[in-house]
């Protein structure tokens, strides 16, 4: 049941063949995975887009993004020649050079080999929750749609340089995003998930789409799953957000590393604690996300010479409240993403 549902709603949505229309030239799509084990936090992203407007022709561009944090951040953004890529329609099977992602017999199989860094990932990720799909949310003058699987169980190995991290039943998260927009347009977003560890019952996803100044919200959601089933979805005015302080670190690693010189400085606008409170129809939920460490992905704008910074923030999440009469009190690891033009 879950296998067929996943295939139907989570297969690639966009076509990357043929000459794109002006709207298609803005299209983007990616499959994103996070693993949050005590010894390793890992982000893997199979990413599809188009060449920047400065290129002579709008050609598909495939990138593999890997960020890993053990005692320090490591990672890379590697472009894979598109002729070495296969995106199979109607199923989840992507081949990016020597790396691949496929969904088979109810399990995601992730195999990543980077060329320029000694990083390799071999993981089986078993979904533990029913996916949630959202139609397009406004993103500046564009639209972003998504499917999210808030809880998975990861098993396998991750090689970072000379070290091999073996994972068994590590908590994990997955989303699939697609849409048409331009980096540099008038938008920002916050996105996060929490996998409270106590008794492994609850998982949650938070999203907030805003304009660049974060003065106008396009979309707010706080979604809660209980034992893999969506239990409660708070949205829009039911969700209040309050940042507290700013995360300050001696330095912030940037990826791809060549963008370090293009985005000097280590200051971020990542809140030290993000408070999210949701209340509706007698239910209430309160989360506190304590940011611990951050790495930034740097994306050149399509609209000007600026860049957008995607801050991937590792941290700890506290969750409490009462939903459908059941008291909730839990805590666990999470990753929050803050996207903002730099």
């Amino acid at each position, binding site marked *: 049941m879950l296998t067929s549902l996943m295939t139907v709603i989570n297969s690639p949505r966009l076509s990357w063949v043929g000459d794109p229309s002006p709207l298609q030239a803005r299209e983007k799509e990616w499959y994103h995975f996070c693993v949050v084990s005590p010894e390793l936090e890992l982000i893997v992203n199979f990413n599809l887009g188009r*060449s*920047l407007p*400065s*290129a*002579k022709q709008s050609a598909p561009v495939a990138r593999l993004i890997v960020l890993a944090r053990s005692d320090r951040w490591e990672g890379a953004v590697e472009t894979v020649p598109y002729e070495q890529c296969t995106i199979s329609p109607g199923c989840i099977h992507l081949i990016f050079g020597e790396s691949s992602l496929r969904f088979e017999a109810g399990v995601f199989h992730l195999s990543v080999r980077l060329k320029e860094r000694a990083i390799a990932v071999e993981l089986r990720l078993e979904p533990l929750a029913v996916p949630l799909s959202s139609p397009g949310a406004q993103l500046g003058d564009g639209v972003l749609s998504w499917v999210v699987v808030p809880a998975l169980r990861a098993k396998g190995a991750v090689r970072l340089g000379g070290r091999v991290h073996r994972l068994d039943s590590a908590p994990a998260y997955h989303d699939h995003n697609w849409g048409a927009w331009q980096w540099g347009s008038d938008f920002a977003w916050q996105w996060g998930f929490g996998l409270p560890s106590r008794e492994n019952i609850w998982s949650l996803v938070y999203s907030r789409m805003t304009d660049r100044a974060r003065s106008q919200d396009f979309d707010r959601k706080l979604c809660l799953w209980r034992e893999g089933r969506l239990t409660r979805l708070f949205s829009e005015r039911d969700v209040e957000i309050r940042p507290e302080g700013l995360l300050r670190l001696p*330095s912030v690693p*940037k990826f*791809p*590393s*060549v*963008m*370090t*010189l*293009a*985005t*000097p400085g280590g200051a971020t606008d990542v809140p030290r604690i993000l408070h999210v409170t949701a209340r509706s129809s007698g239910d209430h939920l309160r989360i506190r996300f304590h940011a611990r460490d951050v790495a930034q992905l740097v994306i*050149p704008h399509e609209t*000007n*010479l*600026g*860049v957008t910074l995607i801050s991937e923030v590792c941290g700890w999440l506290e969750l409490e409240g009462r939903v459908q009469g059941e008291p909730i009190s839990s805590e666990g690891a999470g990753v929050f993403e803050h996207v903002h033009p730099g």
Partner: protein
Amino acid sequence: MNMSTPGEFMVLVRHSLERLEQECPPAHAALRHRLRDHCLWITIDGEQFSLAPVGRSLRLSPALPQATVELQTSRRTLLEVLEGSLPLLDAVLQGRLFLRGTAQALIEFHEALVIYMRGAVRCPSLPELLPILRQQATLLLG
């Protein structure tokens, strides 16, 4: 080094600026604008040349100018800075990259560097020059 003929590194910089102009004209224009009051005197592994905006171009010359900013470093250090493994500030503090100019001139040079990098990452053909720089650095280490 014969100072009247362009050295290997100056040729590489010339190629990169030509590609920047062709493939990302807004970055080339912004770079010219940022450097409008400046002339850079660059020394890389002993090779010396100047860089200054002249009209709608950025002119490279082995002639010694009235420089507002002097930069002295090696290809090896430059590669580490470009690839992000060595922060620019660390390169300066470790004595691997020498900069001289007024505070304002150095700030504007840094801004020019950021503009150059933001343009460079938008140029499809510019990454082709990086292996040449690596090869030159390796040959020098010999």
